[in-house]
């Protein structure tokens, strides 16, 4: 069973994603803030992490900080960055920091699940 971490501060998105991915056989954890995500990443191994660019916090782009953390500590983990503020510059920066895919919000869950599954299977 693949273990998935969802990092987003919007409760309704976390709820919907968690239910969707669990129904498709993933083990799912969810974090609402950067430090909570990092505490989970230190303790558990994830096949993939879906992270929102902006979480409640002071930086405005905590999602990229989480990506940095993952690249340094868990290089095998696949990453998907979700953002409502997409731009070619942001996408380029995210890719440069090692993100596997950048998607605009809102994203249809079947498409997201397809992408996550292909990234995870590719890594195996």
């Amino acid at each position, binding site marked *: 069973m693949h273990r998935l971490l969802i990092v987003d501060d919007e409760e309704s998105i976390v709820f919907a994603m968690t239910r969707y991915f669990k129904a498709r056989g993933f083990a799912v*954890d*969810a*974090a*609402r*803030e950067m*430090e*909570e995500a*990092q*505490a*989970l990443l*230190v*303790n558990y191994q994830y096949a993939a992490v879906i992270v929102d660019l902006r979480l*409640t916090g002071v930086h405005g782009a905590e999602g990229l900080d989480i990506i940095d953390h993952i690249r340094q500590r868990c290089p095998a983990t696949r990453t998907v960055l979700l953002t409502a503020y997409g731009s070619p510059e942001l996408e380029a920066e995210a890719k440069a920091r090692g993100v596997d895919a950048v998607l605009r919000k809102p994203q249809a869950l079947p498409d997201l699940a397809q992408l996550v599954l292909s990234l995870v299977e590719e890594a195996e």
Partner: protein
Amino acid sequence: MSLLARLLEPEALSLVFQPVFEAADDGGGHAVHSFEALTRGPVGTNAFAPNVLFEYARRKGHEATLDRICLENLLRAMTLLPGRVRCSFNVHASTLQRDAGFAAHVLERAHTHGLEPSRLTIEIVEHAPDWSGRGFLRALGQLRDGGMRIALDDIGLGQSNYRMILDCRPDYFKIDRYVVQGCPTDTGRQAIIDSLVVLARKFGARVVAEGIESRAELTAVRLLGVDLLQGFLLSAPLPATDCSALLSPAPGR
């Protein structure tokens, strides 16, 4: 409400006690030596798991706050335990280093609750690399002078290294489950346990094997000279109200 706000609410954290048993069996089974207090985060959150709870608190810069809450919970719960049973509790080395009033606070709170500090063992844990300093050593001295004992947790892993042994001069060496589990068939693990037992003897300390889950592990660590045993084979962590049933007439060293 953020996770941090939930953690800091009254009654958010719960406490269970895992017994530590004497390795020597006088024919009547292994006597209880002490109980280790283990904190759990709010049910239904990621922080229910203690490793996530403390890592999260550390990243939020609230390790010392959490350590103080855990201490208060422990002292309150100890009033439910019978007799003069001894308890240990985990404190981050970084808390002792950075929270200059922590050691005095522990002793003052123990006094307020009517508990002799000699019934308390402080288990030093640390996962961050920047623990060491004069504040840490001063706090350890204060706690020891106050009558408390010192245990070093997770020996051989992370920051629980030779330097930490030299600085802490622990009364108890706690060998992590990573070393204990699988030791009956792994000569490498046996060699590490054997060397830690020899080292502990030279420091006048006792050795605790954590994470014992099989009869074979229990037998192996006893043969290697471990003094004290802890693990699910002997007992899972218990609520304070269930601890009395395990106690023999004279718990303790």
